[in-house]
């Protein structure tokens, strides 16, 4: 799809979301809900004692799995699957830069995810929640986070070039 057209449609989805719910889109928040729910189920005693879960519980009186973002992400999975289906892109495959081994790619993906998940909690939102939705509502913090994410990635791109470019 033409990137500008896709961006326009994505903007309309975001606008609709804000018009209906008063809040923007998100992604890492849903994973957070799943993590919190798992801890609550697996280790209820620990859940009670931990500062982080205590604060989460206070701000989310309902069950973590009933949060808006969890339902949104279930939709995302279906939407992306449908898109892959009509564009014939559904295939089990490991995508990576040229010239790195599969094992390295997996380790890098886990490490990258770890950093992203940790950072998203630290900054109160990821590229969807803080950067994209933050830009739409002109949040100072959101736009700042957006610039820092991309600035940091550009700054580190040189050191990570072996993961993505031909030698």
């Amino acid at each position, binding site marked *: 799809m033409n*990137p500008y057209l896709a961006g326009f449609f*994505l903007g309309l989805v975001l606008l609709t979301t804000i*018009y209906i719910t008063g809040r923007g889109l998100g*992604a890492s928040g849903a994973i957070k809900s799943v993590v919190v729910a798992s801890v609550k189920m697996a280790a209820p005693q620990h859940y009670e004692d931990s500062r982080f879960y205590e604060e989460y519980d206070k701000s989310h009186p309902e069950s973590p799995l009933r949060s808006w973002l969890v339902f949104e*992400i279930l939709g995302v999975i279906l939407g992306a699957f449908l898109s892959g289906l009509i564009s014939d892109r559904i295939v089990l495959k490991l995508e990576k830069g040229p010239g790195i081994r599969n094992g390295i790619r997996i380790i890098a*993906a886990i490490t990258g995810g770890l950093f992203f998940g*940790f*950072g998203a909690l630290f900054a109160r939102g990821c590229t969807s929640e803080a950067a994209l939705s933050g830009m739409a509502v002109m949040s100072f913090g959101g736009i700042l986070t957006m610039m*820092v994410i991309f600035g940091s990635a550009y700054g580190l791109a040189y050191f990570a070039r072996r993961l993505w470019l031909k030698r």
Partner: protein
Amino acid sequence: MGPLVPEIISNEFNLVIAFIIGIGFGFILEQAGFSSTRKLAGLFYGYDFTVLKVFFTAGITALIGILLLAHLGLLDIDLIYINPTFLWSALIGGVIMGAGFIIGGFCPGASICAAAIGKIDAFAFIFGSILGIFIFAESYPLFEEIYKMENWDAVRIDQYFSISPELFAFLITIIAIGAFITTTQIENRINNKKVTFSRSQLIKYLVLGGIPFIIIAILTYTPDRQEYIRHQISDTQQQKKCIIKEISSDKLAHELINNYYKINLIDVRSQDAYKEYHLPLAINIPLDDITNHEWKAYFVQKYKINVFYADKDTIARKACLLARFIGKSENYVLKESPGQFRNLFFNIEPPSNDALKTEFNTYRFRVQSARELLYLENALKNSYNLLRKENQK
């Protein structure tokens, strides 16, 4: 008026909407190519700037859309969630996320789309983010202090720089278009592609690029809905056209005593004037606050009538007209001023002995009404206080 949750759409149905919106979100991200880690990484090595183009176009579309809806009075911009600014956490979290982006080649939303179409590395990334979130949650006490430092609250960037939202929208659109042109050139140079635009293509891009500027110009140079309403109600021509129903003090007193639950008596004077003296059972909504969201419920309902009063007849009339713009409630204006009402009911002198019988009747009615109004006010205040105590428990 938006946002529709929770007043128009219930929280339950909202979860269904979340699912439907998610489908749109996921579909577009996947169609735009966010499910490919090579495309995402291309942004940082200059061979593919798709992600930047999608991202910026989406942000600007939504931003201008929000301003447009607010301008038309369809969305209350003060009610939407503005991500709060915590300076240190935004900076530190952003740097860490940037590292995650370039090492892992995904952001969380993109990884979920990629996993949905079977990318194995995306599953690894999601597994990593679960770990990262878990580690943050477990080590939270270590970071709590810095996480909460420099809390600037929900400050908007236009407020921070004291510029109008329209000016910010204008500036960021210019930046985006500049970025689109530059990145396309970089892309073509790195991929050794020679691209020339045909005349019709150029015209197409010029027209499309002009649309946001036209909308911003409209936003800047036309009065918004609030201004329009205020203009309409101050226009004496308009005031004359609109017939306003009046209610006399005696009739009001009679109605209040018998049907107090069917009437909102609204004092539209300033707070101070209200505190000094107000009619029994009256609530205070200063004229300038009538269009505020918190009072909307009074003007959209059709079960109770609203009776406005002020010291000046014209102010009460303005309030009545404003209410008519907001909703469909039945509105009346009190003929007398609150001072006159007080004199009629509470500072009343008995008529002289040779007065007519009707004068005696009126006198008796007013004295009786005054007593009953005070009684009602105290009784309702009492039950209201009890209710509030109950809620606090």
